[in-house]
């Protein structure tokens, strides 16, 4: 037992003196989750759609449409700028706006006459999401316009006559128009002032409503578990690689000349790897806890973490038991872990994966680790909630550790000559 402690201490001290490798690996989840949270959840809120409007009509209806676009509620989502006719396209091509709305000449006339009218929306092809929002919003706007023209039809026809005529319209004409508008408005008021159908948006699972301004930390905590689990596997890889480094440097041969059994050396390396992963996990957990600012079930967290560390150690033991050189092992581990990371939801949530990949996602330990930690952080799961992840990771880890220890033992016995 004393030998094991000495070996673990020696390996940890070596990593402590040269912390850049594991340090950079551990920095990555924080950088990655931070960048995602900054991009999609900064306190500035979602970016506004920059919408240019070419008003080629400049009549009553188009001016009303423009003021509707500049309404306070629309201003939360749109930056509307009126530009001269034919000037909008050049601005779009310079990337200065997401979309251009063209109100055609004769728009007011057509609206008042109840004739068909077509507005044109030009999307910026270099963007995808903001032009889509512009298109969806303008489509809704056109639906409303269409409904308005139908509902206010008689009043609009009267208004057109009054505007087209010379001089001021007569009192009777004004009264007739007002009456037509009033009766239409009265008929539809119950339906549209305010709209009789509303939409409430809820998330299907019973997660708590988000606090205002918490988008950054929410996204950070959504992204952190997956990428942190992947980083822990990478740290484990750094730890276990030492066995091959020592074989190359000749220090393994020296250890074998001491009164140490091969299994003790392998066990020491596995324990050092587990200790390195535990320290790394503790560091990441502290940062996660600081961002979460809410308690998690400690027993569930510790059980899940123990299972994950077993999986990390077992995985790296098999990789370096199979590899002939450090470089081969590092390459094999990087490739397998990268595939696991993409399939297992480390970089992209599992639900956002293509259907074909979702099917195989749960074959990866990273998926189980990610699901477990997200359950703890997002849904406040207890031991029962993370039990599936614990069982899969522990089973995966124990199996691989047995196989890996056998392979490493064989290598260590031979490997003094490696």
């Amino acid at each position: 037992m004393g030998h094991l402690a000495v070996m673990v201490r020696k390996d940890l001290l070596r990593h402590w003196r040269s912390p850049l490798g594991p340090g950079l690996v551990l920095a990555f989840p924080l950088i990655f989750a931070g960048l995602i949270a900054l991009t999609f959840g900064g306190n500035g809120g979602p970016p506004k759609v920059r919408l240019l409007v070419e008003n080629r009509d400049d009549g009553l209806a188009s001016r009303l449409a423009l003021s509707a676009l500049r309404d306070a509620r629309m201003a939360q989502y749109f930056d509307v700028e009126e530009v001269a006719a034919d000037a909008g396209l050049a601005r779009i091509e310079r990337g200065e706006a997401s979309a251009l709305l063209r109100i055609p000449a004769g728009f007011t006339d057509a609206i008042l006459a109840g004739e068909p009218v077509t507005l044109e929306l030009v999307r910026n092809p270099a963007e995808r999401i903001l032009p889509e929002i512009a298109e969806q919003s303008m489509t809704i706007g056109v639906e409303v316009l269409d409904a308005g023209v139908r509902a206010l039809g008689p009043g609009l026809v009267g208004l057109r006559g009054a505007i087209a005529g010379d001089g001021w319209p007569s009192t009777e004409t004004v009264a007739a128009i007002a009456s037509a508008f009033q009766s239409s408005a009265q008929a539809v008021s119950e339906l549209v002032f305010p709209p009789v159908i509303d939409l409430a948006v809820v998330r299907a699972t019973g997660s708590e409503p988000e606090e205002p301004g918490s988008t950054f930390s929410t996204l950070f905590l959504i992204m952190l578990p997956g990428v942190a689990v992947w980083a822990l596997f990478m740290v484990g890889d750094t730890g276990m690689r030492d066995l091959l480094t020592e074989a190359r440097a000749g220090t393994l041969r020296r250890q074998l000349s001491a009164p140490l059994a091969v299994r003790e050396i392998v066990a020491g390396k596995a324990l050092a790897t587990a200790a390195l992963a535990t320290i790394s996990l503790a560091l990441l957990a502290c940062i996660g806890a600081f961002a979460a600012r809410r308690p998690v079930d400690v027993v569930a967290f510790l059980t899940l973490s123990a299972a994950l560390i077993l999986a990390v150690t077992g995985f790296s033991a098999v990789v370096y038991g199979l590899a002939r050189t450090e470089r081969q092992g590092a390459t094999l581990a990087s490739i397998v872990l990268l595939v696991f990371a993409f399939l297992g939801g480390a970089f992209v949530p599992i639900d956002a994966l293509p259907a074909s990949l979702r099917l195989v996602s749960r074959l990866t330990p990273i998926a189980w680790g990610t699901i477990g930690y997200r359950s703890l952080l997002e849904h406040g799961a207890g031991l029962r909630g993370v039990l599936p992840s614990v069982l899969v990771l522990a089973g995966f880890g124990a199996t691989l550790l047995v196989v890996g220890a056998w392979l490493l033992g064989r290598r260590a016995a031979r490997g003094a000559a490696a």
Partner: protein
Amino acid sequence: MSGVLWLAWNDVRLTARDKPAFLWLVVLPIAMMWFFGAIGGGSEQPLRLALDVLDQDQAWVARAFVGELREDTIDLQELAAPPPPGAPERRRLVVPAGFTAGVLSGERQVLRIEHVATGNLESNLAAQAHVIRAIARTIGRLAAAKVEGGATAERYRDVASRPALARLAVTTAGGGTPVPRGREQSVPGMLTMTVLMMTLIYGAVFLTIEKQSGMLRRQTLVPMSRGRVILAKLLGRLILAALQIGVLVAAGRLLFGVSWGRSPAGLALLLASYAIAVAGLATLLGAVVRNPAQASAVGWIIGMVLASIGGCWWPSEVMPGWMRAAAHVLPTAWAMEGFHGLISFGGGLTTVLVPAAVLLGFGGVYSLLAAKLLRV
């Protein structure tokens, strides 16, 4: 000069002899192009939104509303009852009982859309927009029917059968060739990222190995001046980046159907400028880090950070304004801007002049710094 070329080619040869190089330089980037393209909706089929509808009312306004929801782009399934606990989560819209009677009496009715907690944000927003459009259409048609004499099912159908008075025609600016959804971002984005990352890693790792083993010092005894050795190192990394770019451009065209624009000259200028910037950065990294492990880890992280901030992972439009502006101190943002000009807008040589000039500037600065800091 032949010595410089020979030394540069030797660096490329060493990289090619590394067995996993093919995987990292070619297979991984192509896999990532496919992966991120698929996530961004990169299938040949148009995006279909899944929406389950639970109509608890079943009276005529509710049925008319569900009818307004049906469109080619929606995979709409009607549920007879709420799904049992434990059933797979799907996006669901609930029309409450008493909806028709409530609407007709002017009593506010609230439809509830339940998103899957971990669902795709873009799909969720698109589904919401679709439902709001159907609501607007339903209210509009009900209003028109009411003005014409009363809101009845027959009159509603009559109003709905008439052609629209107001329409929206949607076009796209520029003369770019449309490419399958998602790929227009993922293919240039992953090319930009992986060329940067792999040139950084391979370029810096081999340089640190040469520094550690004393090979670099020996090369100056060939005889070759320090300046020419550094030039050879830069050229080696430039050739490596250019080879990878060539393979990935071909893969983008042949495997993913991406059109690289109408200007081969513009594309060549942009890619050459980017390769020069990346080669300079790889040599600089190799000059400042001490060993291959550091080179690999730092190269990986620099690649990831520059790619994400530069707009290679997601469209830069979703980033906050300050981040979009700050990204322009990075070569990746200028490369992506050039790609969008060529691919999305179908621009010519002039479109990429500014991005190419900036990239060449980056390349020059990185190379000068590398030459100053590299200890031969």
